[in-house]
């Protein structure tokens, strides 16, 4: 609900943007600078302006046309622009979309340039770097990273007899059972985002392959995923997690403040939310921790967004300058201060204020253990079905076995065309240039 409202509120910005465009259009008439079109989505779009101004100061011969697009419209805008040949030079791109635009052969392969440029690629977190590599090509330069960690109330954990978050599933489970019993007596031990992410993460932690050979089949009946699924369902079965987050829980942050909820799994945006919403007395009583795994510290997913250059761009040099500038450590730090988006480079985490922020230690540790989602164009459609069958199983409408069997069957249907092409050996995007 919050998400939708936010999108609505963002719409209010349009008259302003229009006005700004008119004004800018008015003064830009005699501009001889090389012009780049840069599409940025959602909140990043609202906050990135100062960085662009800094870039233009450094490069007086370049001018960047920043175009802000709400997240809800972004994907369709990109695709229609692709069909109509109206793509910008550079754009921000969610990691889960990369595969689709790579499949369309719309993205520039940055591999050669990066190998020749003196860019320390090992400074980037490996998981998020891997999310940009598809079939041996590098299609984007990571801009910010998004992952899931545990947020917890330090005081309540201590009351339950724990100094810090456990690192294994079994210990974690034991902790949660203690949290809902006296003396803590929370109504719920844990809250999960109402989407597919937690279940998929549990699967990845168990080393479940998710998809079969070459991403052509669903492989959710694999024993490793089944184990993750059982663990996931057990959390609801034991009433450690609310089944429906709206009736049983008002606002996550409110219940967290009241001590009715002790742990929740969420992303970087929750850091800002907690700092805004929790009363001062609670500000030093929460922390983040990396996710526990089946046997020890667990994986989490490598989400976030990258900067891509479209193949149609006629400004190869300038676009590279722009995306390099935006991933430079000092600019990354400024970007973090503007948006709260987590930097993708290790060296930035060594700089204050990130270095001294103990509350985001969970992210710092987790980022060393992140893994990208399957890089195939159908992933989002598959993820939606995972969410559906997880819902059905946790509400008891389907047995876990039935749910996974039906999920596999549906994913196989979704991947039908992909499979046919792979088996026929006739499909390769590069062959159709």
């Amino acid at each position, binding site marked *: 609900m919050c998400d939708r409202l936010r999108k*609505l509120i963002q719409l209010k910005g349009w008259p302003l943007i229009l006005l700004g465009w008119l004004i800018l259009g008015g003064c830009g008439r005699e501009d001889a600078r090389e012009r780049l079109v840069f599409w940025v989505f959602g909140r990043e779009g609202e906050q990135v302006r100062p960085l662009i101004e800094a870039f233009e100061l450094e490069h007086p011969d370049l001018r960047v046309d920043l175009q802000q697009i709400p997240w809800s419209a972004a994907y369709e805008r990109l695709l229609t622009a692709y*069909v109509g040949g109206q793509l910008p030079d550079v754009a921000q791109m969610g990691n889960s979309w990369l595969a689709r635009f790579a499949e369309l052969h719309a993205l520039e392969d940055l591999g050669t340039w990066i190998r020749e440029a003196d860019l320390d690629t090992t400074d980037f977190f490996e998981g998020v770097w891997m999310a940009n590599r598809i079939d041996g090509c590098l299609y984007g330069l990571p801009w910010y990273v998004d992952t899931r960690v545990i947020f917890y109330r330090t005081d309540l954990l201590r009351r339950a007899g724990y100094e810090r978050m456990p690192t294994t599933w079994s210990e974690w489970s034991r902790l949660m059972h203690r949290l809902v019993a006296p003396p803590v007596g929370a109504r719920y031990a844990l809250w999960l985002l109402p989407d597919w992410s937690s279940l998929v993460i549990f699967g990845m932690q168990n080393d479940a392959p998710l998809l079969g050979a070459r991403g052509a089949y669903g492989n959710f009946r694999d024993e490793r995923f089944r184990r993750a699924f059982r663990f996931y369902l057990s959390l609801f079965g034991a009433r450690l997690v609310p089944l*429906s987050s*709206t*009736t049983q829980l008002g606002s996550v942050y409110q219940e967290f403040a009241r001590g009715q909820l002790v742990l929740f799994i969420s992303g970087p945006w929750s850091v800002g939310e907690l700092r805004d919403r929790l009363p001062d007395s609670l500000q030093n009583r929460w922390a983040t921790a990396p996710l526990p795994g089946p046997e020890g510290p667990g994986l989490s997913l490598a989400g976030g967004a990258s900067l891509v250059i479209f193949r149609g761009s006629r400004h190869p040099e300038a676009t590279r300058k722009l995306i390099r500038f935006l991933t430079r450590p000092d600019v990354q730090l400024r970007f973090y201060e503007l948006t709260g988006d987590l930097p993708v480079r290790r060296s930035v985490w060594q700089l204050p204020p990130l270095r001294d922020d103990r509350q985001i230690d969970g992210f710092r540790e987790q980022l060393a253990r992140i893994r990208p989602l399957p890089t195939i164009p159908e992933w989002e*459609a598959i993820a939606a079905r995972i969410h559906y069958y997880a819902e059905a199983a946790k509400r008891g409408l389907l047995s876990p076995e039935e749910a996974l069997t039906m999920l596999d069957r549906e994913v196989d249907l979704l991947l039908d065309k*992909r499979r046919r092409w792979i088996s026929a050996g006739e*499909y390769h995007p590069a062959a*159709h240039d």
Partner: protein
Amino acid sequence: MKDGGLSIELRVAGWFLGPALSVVLIFQLMPAGAAFLLSLTDFDLYTFAAPDTLRIVGLRNYQMLLQDGRFWLALRNTLYFVGLGGVLTLGLSLGTALWLNQRFVRFRALLRTVYFAPVVTTLVAVAIVWRYIYHARYGLLNQGLQLLGLEPVDWLGDPRWALPSLVLMAVWKNYGYSLLIFMAALQAVPEELYDAARIDGADLWQQFRHVTLPTLRPVVLLTGLVTANGYFQVFAEPYVMTGGGPLDATLTMVLLLYDQGFRWWRLGYAAALAFVLFVLMLLLSAVLLRLQREAQR
């Protein structure tokens, strides 16, 4: 002479009908035909990248559709919407129109405006208000239930309640339109008929049953047709309020079509779905129109 006259008549008719016919041809028949052709192919995201990989798959999309559980669920939800929504909309608007038509009702113009206001309000604004009404913890509806000592209901989060909740909202939003039509039609019922009925000793129900309803019948059927067609294409309500969830409980045909076509870009499949929807609506309209024709006879 006779032949020449006919051809002149035809020519004149052609000139008059031409513009309208060409509009129908270009903007309705041709897209429908193109959609049908598209539904015979496996056009999808891959096809954008490599058009030469497009395949003609014949009726395979339709065959897949019949085996797709989500299709049947969407069809069921849509029919539920059309049935419940249609009956409620017609019943409520007819009832309200009858009431507003009474001489003792004051502020008639004001009331008419009040009932019609939701029709012209954008759905997104309406949705925000209704989300508050339906909110599981702090919503108006559940606070009312609590006052009565009943358990709160998760209106939009519970698969059993989500669809009826949306129907209720849609009815509230749309019934002002048919109300307006009914009010206009009621004005046209000759007063003498009521006088005659009263002299014969008919009570209010009998007057309604034997005077009002027969006179209104063509209007009721027309309004029914418009309403049913509108609900058949219901999209914005679930899209804005629930996104089709929970557990696809509010997934409608058009929402499924949007999902397949514009989120996952399986355009061939989506076109097949659109075509099935088109045929279903055509059938429904044909039935209702036939009923109307019989009513007028």
